[in-house]
């Protein structure tokens, strides 16, 4: 019975991908132990988050793609309603309304949108799979813009960009004509000044401080400067586990969530960074391979989009802590402390694995 269960799991689950993720999660816990200075309460929490994440992974990996396809539009609509609710009854924190209080945990609907939007767009293209036309593209665009604008208004630039990216990548993969793409990019560049004006002051400051963080070392540039100091002081081999002075002495903000990678960089140095990059690269490579091996339009698009989403989160997080991108609160997948990020990342992988291992279960 147990053997059967295990063989069922291992049949369904992709071993190379999962073992890489296990390594990343373990690294994450290790760094977290240092960043929290072995705070067992936080570590315990994170173990709980990981267990929930694994359960989510297992659940989605065994979910029939047919069902996913069927429920995708409902899921999308529910997420939209939750998003609107947030702006009415949401909890305000750090000047932004992002959370809904569910009693036990605070819950961030915009995170759910990271999954439900690709599923919904995927289902749109699946519906039009025999004739992917401008109509499908337009519908998708509308489906993207509604949650994108709501999240942007929360305001949560980081998540808005991620949600937008996960949607737009599907339109791109679905074969939107290069001419349309290039002219859209051109139009976007033209509208940059307008978009700049719609940004909140703190968002503008973050982008400005990126250009010269030393201009406002105790204001918006502080996080960036301290993070760069942490990374740079790590050197080639790092200071060793538990020796991040930037984190231990509280110079780094948010060391458990957004800035956990700075702590890692300070303690494990460039060697550690290269290892992390290799692990992430392998995850994306593996996910893309799975996506390309899938047979139907829905699976391919959803798998590619979800893995691209994970990449965008990774890129934004590492880019912001190393001073290439402005500070936007995006956690590092599989490593940062926090339930939502962990569960969403695990669920994404679960969906990809599920779509792959049950590829025959969906009718073309």
């Amino acid at each position, binding site marked *: 019975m147990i053997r059967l269960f295990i063989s069922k799991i291992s049949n369904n689950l992709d071993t190379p991908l999962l073992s890489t993720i296990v390594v990343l999660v373990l690294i994450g816990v290790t760094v977290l132990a240092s960043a929290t200075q072995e705070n067992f309460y936080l570590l315990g929490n994170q173990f709980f988050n990981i267990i929930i994440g694994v359960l989510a992974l297992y659940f989605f990996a065994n979910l029939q793609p047919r069902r996913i396809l069927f429920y995708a539009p409902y899921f999308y609509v529910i997420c939209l309603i939750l998003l609107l609710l947030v702006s009415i009854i949401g909890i305000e924190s750090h000047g932004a309304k992002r959370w809904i209080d569910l009693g036990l945990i605070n819950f961030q609907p915009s995170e759910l949108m990271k999954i439900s939007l690709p599923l919904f767009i995927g289902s749109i293209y699946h519906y039009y*799979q*025999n*004739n*992917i*036309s401008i109509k499908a593209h337009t519908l998708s665009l509308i489906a993207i813009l509604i949650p994108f604008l709501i999240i942007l208004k929360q305001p949560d630039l980081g998540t808005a960009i991620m949600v937008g990216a996960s949607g737009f*990548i599907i339109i*791109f*993969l*679905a*074969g939107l004509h290069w001419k349309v793409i290039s002219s859209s990019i051109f139009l976007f560049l033209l509208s940059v000044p307008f978009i700049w004006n719609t940004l909140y002051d703190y968002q503008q400051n973050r982008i400005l401080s990126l250009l010269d963080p030393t201009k406002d070392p105790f204001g918006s540039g502080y996080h960036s400067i*301290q993070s*760069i*100091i*942490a*990374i*740079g*002081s*790590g*050197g*080639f081999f790092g200071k060793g586990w538990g020796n991040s*002075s*930037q984190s*231990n*002495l*509280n*110079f780094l903000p948010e060391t458990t969530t957004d800035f956990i990678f700075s702590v890692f*960089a300070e303690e494990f*140095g*460039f060697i550690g*960074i*290269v290892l992390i*990059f290799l692990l*992430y*690269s392998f995850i*994306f*490579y593996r996910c*893309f391979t799975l*996506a*390309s091996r899938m047979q139907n*339009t829905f699976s*391919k*698009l959803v798998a*590619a989009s979800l893995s*691209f989403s994970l*990449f965008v989160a990774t*890129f934004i997080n*590492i*880019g912001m802590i*190393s*001073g*290439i991108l402005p500070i936007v609160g995006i956690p590092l997948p599989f490593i940062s402390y926090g339930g939502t990020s962990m569960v969403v990342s695990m669920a994404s992988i679960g969906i990809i694995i599920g779509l792959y291992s049950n590829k025959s279960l969906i009718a*073309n």
Partner: protein
Amino acid sequence: MDKILFKYCFQTRLRIIFILIIIVFFILLIKIFYLQVIEHNHYKTLSNKNSIKVIPLPPNRGIIFDRNNKILADNKLSFTLELNRKHKINFDTLAYRFKDIIEITDRDIKNYRERISKYYFFDSSPIKFNLTSIQIAKFISQKYKYPEFIIKQGFVRNYPLGKSSAHLIGYINRINISDIKNLKKNGLFSNYKGSTHIGKSGIEKYYEKKIHGISGYKKIEVDANQNLIRTIQTVPAISGENIYLTIDSRLQKIAEKEFNNRKGALVAIDPNNGEILAYVSQPTFDPSLFTNGISQENWLKLNNKVNRPLLDRVISGAYPPGSTLKPFVGLAALHNNVRVPPFSIIDPGFYTMSNGSKTFKDWKKGGHGNVDLIKAIAVSCDTFFYGLGVELGIPNINNTLDIFGFGKKTLIDIGNEKKGLLADKEWKKNKLGKNWYQGETAITAIGQGYTLVTPIQLAYATAKIANEKIDNTPHLRLNSNNNINKLKDDQSISTGIINSFSKKNIDLIKLGMQRVTETEGTAAFLGKTSKYKIAAKTGTAQVFGLKKDEVYDEKKLPDHLKDHALFIAYAPAENPKLAIAIIVENGGHGGSTAGPIAKKVFDTYLDKNYD
């Protein structure tokens, strides 16, 4: 687009995206490589700076002792109330808010403001000093209410003798901007990072380098809120050296008391080794007024134009020597064979220049009768010296005075020493643009003229007469020897009285000085009551020039125009143990005013039961 086209398109574009991902990762990796490997040292420094703070530990100042191990300056534990300068302070409500704990007066606030404008402070600066334990207890119990206040514990300089010996010991003051400039110029600033005070005068200043000590430091790790996490390393400060002075503070006190509020100076020096036993400058001041930044009010008081209490008269007071110069001028005459014994004159009470151009009066109407050199010193015969001077000439007089150390610094180990003045033709031409008159040579010989001496020069010259073998410059630090050999090279000080003058001539001068305290001498009254023989010379120096035929009448003159009384002496005459020079400003006649002071000091010092 149909399904087959879609699959092809999807595959191509997925590949493009993956290549993009690799490129993006590569860019991130390059950026991180730049930070971690190429710029590593820079960020390592920044990270250390972030977390490691170096707190200087100031050394305790060395203690100053007199020759009998009596404390002249030490450090006393004291608590000060300080204002944290990081807080915004509302001075209007400050006193009211704090009224139940410690009274803060308007004057405290005024002084505080003056202090922070003039001196150098770190993150807090004092407003109230010498807190009592009750005040401290009150404050600590309600500390949370007053975040802008801090109580600091530290050592304060303490001068047990108070006003006594203030010029000698000197004072310290808070470090100000110009001190910092000086310290930086001399590369000493790093040693003063934690220090609040610096020696400003006297021994405190001259031996500042030794007394200050070597600063230590504590390396601590702090968090982003500057809270202490742990101490990494402690290098303790090395306390300053204790300084032992040649001074005998008992002698010093007796001398000060004898001055009885008159202005002037006294130097007592051991003619055998140059050690200074008493160093008195009157009036004096309270050195502790300076320790916490002197207030404007006190500063103005101390800069009183008439009394000038801050002036160290021993080394910075330049006085006309009056007749105390006669023994030295007499020796010059003997040395240059101008007055070879038994040469004598009949003194009519005046001297007329050989060309008849001018007549100079003797201090005694009617003259002293038959006078030889010895008697001329004993009775201080002006007439004898007028002629002697004119015949000797200024160059010869100045040569001898130079050998005795007049007109140049004695290089005593204390700052601000004046050179005094030996005037000659050239000096007068350059300084006043006038020619030298023969008559000026005559009055130079009796110590009037332009000649100016400091009490330390007079004392040292007297010690040289008393013991021609003396080979030490006058000094205040015990066993310092004042590097006499080094000084010889650097300053070409002529230490050898013995090389320049014959013993026979010096003995003649000594005999003259002994006669001063004998029957017909100007200080005969001193000899009458003395158990030991005193060799001395009295002097009276005019502060203000009388017009022709005007008669000096002590009673009619205001105090500050009265003559200065001078007195030099050594005793016992046969075996000198102490040489003294005294100046009592506006004290009138030297023998009667300054003589008794010297007698008291000798009596004390030579008393067999003294030690």
